[in-house]
C-alpha cells in the first residue's frame, strides 16, 4: 500500500493539471499562414516539462526513504486542521469578503471583514480585545476609504 506523502500528492496534482490543460489546449487555434509556429506549441512544451518533472518527483519519492516522514494520513490531516483552523477560516473569510464587495460595497465589507478576522485571531475573550478589534477595523477601513476616494480619486466598489 503506497503511502501518500506531500511529494506524491504534489506530483499527482501536477499531472492532473497537465492533463486538464493539455485537453484544453485542443481548443487553441492551429497555426495560419502568417504564423510560423502555432500558439499551442509553447504551452504544450511547458506541460511536457511539468509532466516530466512531476514523474521524476514521484519516482524519487517512491525510491527514497527520507520522504517517509512526510506521510499524510487522515489522522495527521485532522490534527493539522485542529491546530490551524484559524488559517482555514481566514481563507474562507477572505473569500466571503471578495464576494461581498460588489454587493455591500467597500466600506461595509471591509469593516465587517476586518472585525471578523481580527476578532477570530485575537479571540474575543476580553472587553479590551473586542474594543481593539472594532477600533482597528473602523480606522483602517475608513482611512483607506478616504485616501483612495478623495486623495487619489480612485473609485472603490
Amino acid at each position, binding site marked *: 500500500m503506497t503511502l501518500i506523502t506531500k511529494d506524491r500528492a504534489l506530483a499527482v496534482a501536477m499531472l492532473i493539471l497537465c492533463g486538464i490543460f493539455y485537453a484544453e489546449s485542443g481548443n487553441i487555434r492551429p497555426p495560419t499562414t502568417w504564423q510560423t509556429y502555432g500558439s499551442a506549441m509553447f*504551452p504544450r512544451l511547458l506541460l511536457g516539462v511539468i509532466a516530466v*518533472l512531476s514523474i521524476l*518527483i514521484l519516482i524519487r519519492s517512491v525510491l527514497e526513504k527520507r520522504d517517509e516522514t*512526510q506521510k499524510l494520513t487522515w489522522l495527521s490531516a485532522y490534527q493539522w486542521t485542529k491546530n490551524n483552523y484559524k488559517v482555514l477560516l481566514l481563507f474562507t473569510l*477572505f473569500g466571503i469578503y471578495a464576494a461581498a464587495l460588489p454587493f455591500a460595497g467597500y466600506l461595509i465589507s*471591509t469593516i465587517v471583514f476586518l472585525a471578523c478576522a*481580527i476578532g477570530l*485571531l*485575537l479571540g474575543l475573550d476580553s472587553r479590551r480585545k473586542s474594543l481593539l478589534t472594532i477600533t482597528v477595523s473602523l480606522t483602517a477601513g475608513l482611512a483607506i476609504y478616504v485616501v483612495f476616494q478623495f486623495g487619489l480619486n480612485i473609485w472603490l466598489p
Partner: protein
Amino acid sequence: MAEFFTHALSLVSSPSVLLLITIGVLFGIIGGSIPGFTVTMAILVVFPFTFAMDPVSGVSIMIGVFVGGYSGGLVSGVMLGIPGTPSSITTVYDGYPMALKGEPGRALGIGVLASFIGTVISVAVLVLFGPLLAKFSMNFRPWEISTLILFALTLVAGLSNGRLLKGMLAAALGLLITTVGYDRNSNIRFDFDLPTLSSGFEILPVMIGIFAFSQLMENIEKLGDKDSAHKNVSMNVTIPYAKIVKDIMGQKINTLRSSLIGSLVGALPGTGGTVANFISYDQAKKFSRHPEKFGTGIPNGIIASEASNSAVAGGSFVPTLALGIPGDLPMAIMMGVLILHGITPGPLMFEQNPVLVGAIYASLLIGAIVMVLCQLFLVRWFARIALIPQQVLVPVVLMLCAIGAYALNNNLFDIWVLFGFGIIGYLLWKADVPLTPLILGVVLGNNLEQQLFRALELDGSWLTFLTRPLSATFIVLSVLSVILALRQNKKINMQRTDDGGSSPLHRDSTPDHKP
C-alpha cells in the same frame, strides 16, 4: 553641455519643483510600500496631474515617484516579508530575516542607503555612457533576449536551495500561468470559455497572492506554535546609523557591482528591471566568501538587491533618451508626459531640449537625495510596524492587498485572482515548493515566448542562437549556472543526510520565501 546642466540644475532646484519632487518621492515610497499598490500604479495615479504642469515640473514629479517607488518596495519586503514590487523580491531574502532577528531598522537603513547609491551610480552611467549603451543595446535582439531570460531562469536552480526538481517545476508552472489569455498571435488560450479569463492574469495579483498569503498564513500558524511563541526577540526599532554605514562600507565591491548590473539590465530592451535583482543577488552570492550565509539576514543580500533595483531607474532612461524607445511601462508613461508637452524623446532631444535632458539627470539625483531624507524620517515609523501584533496586521494587510489588486484595473476579478493564487501559493508552500522560481516564471514567461518565437520567425534556424556571440555567451552561462546549481544541490543534500536522524526535509519554521 555643462552650462545646460547647471541651468537645468537651477530650474530643478527652484522651490516649486523641489516641492513637487518631494511630493512625488513621498507618494512613491508610500505607494511602493503598500503591498499590492506598486510603483507602476503610483506613476499611473500621478500621470494625469502632470498635464497641467510645465515639462520640467511634470518630469520631475514623475521621476520623484519613480525613485520613491522603487525604494518603497523595500519596506513591505522587510517588514512584512511580502515584496512590494517584483523588483524587490530578493530584498525579502535577507531583509525579512534580519527584521525577524530583531533588527528591522538596520535592514531598512541598509536598503535605503543601497538604493541611494544605486540610483546615483546609475545616473553616472546614464550621463557618461548613455548613448554608447544605447548603441550596444541595439545588438540585443530576440536571440540575446531569449537566452538572457533563459539564463535568468537557470538562476532559479541556484535559488531553490536543494530542491532543484521542485524549483524547476515551479518555474515551468509560472511560465504556464502566463499562457492564459490572448497570446502574441491574438489567439485565445486556456480561457475555458470564461470571458473573464480572456485577458489572462495580471502579474501583480498573482505575485502578491502567492507571496502574501503564504507568508501571512505562516505568521498565523506560528502564533499557534508553542515553540516560537517563546522566542521573544527584542525588537530594535531604532535606526543604527553607524552600523548601517559600516555595513555598506564593508561591501563596496558588492554595491558597485550590483549598481552596474542594475544599470545595464535596465538599459537593455526586453528584460525589464525585475531580472536585475535576481542576477545581482545571485552574483553577490557566487562571489561571496560565505555564500551559505545568504538568506539568513546578512547585509550583503539586501545591498545586492536594493542597489540593483534602484539602479534600474537610471538605466531604463538610456533607451528612452538615447533612442526614443521606452524600456518599460513607467518609461512609456514618462514619455507620454513628454509627448503631451510637445517634446518627442529621441536622439533629437539632446539637440532640441538639452535643458530638459539636464533636468532629467538633475531630478534623478535630487530625487535620490530627497528619497534618503524622506526615508530617514519615515523609516522610524515603518520599523514600528514590527511592533504591531500579527493578529491585527494580517487582516489589514490582506485587505490592502485586495484593494490594491482591485484598484489596478478596476476589476473585481483581480481580487479573485489574488485569492486563487493565494490558495495555490499556500498549498505549494506546504508542499515544499520554492515560490520564487514561480514568480520568476510569471514575470518572464510572456517575454520569453514572444522573443523566442520571434527569433525563430525571423530566422528559422535554431543554430542562430549559437552563432550569434552574445546569445551563445548566455547559453554557456546558463549551462554553467545549471551545473553549479547541481553541485550545490548535491552538497546541500549530502549535508542534510549527514545531519543525522532529524528528518532533513522537515524544516522548522524557516519560511520558504528565501532560497
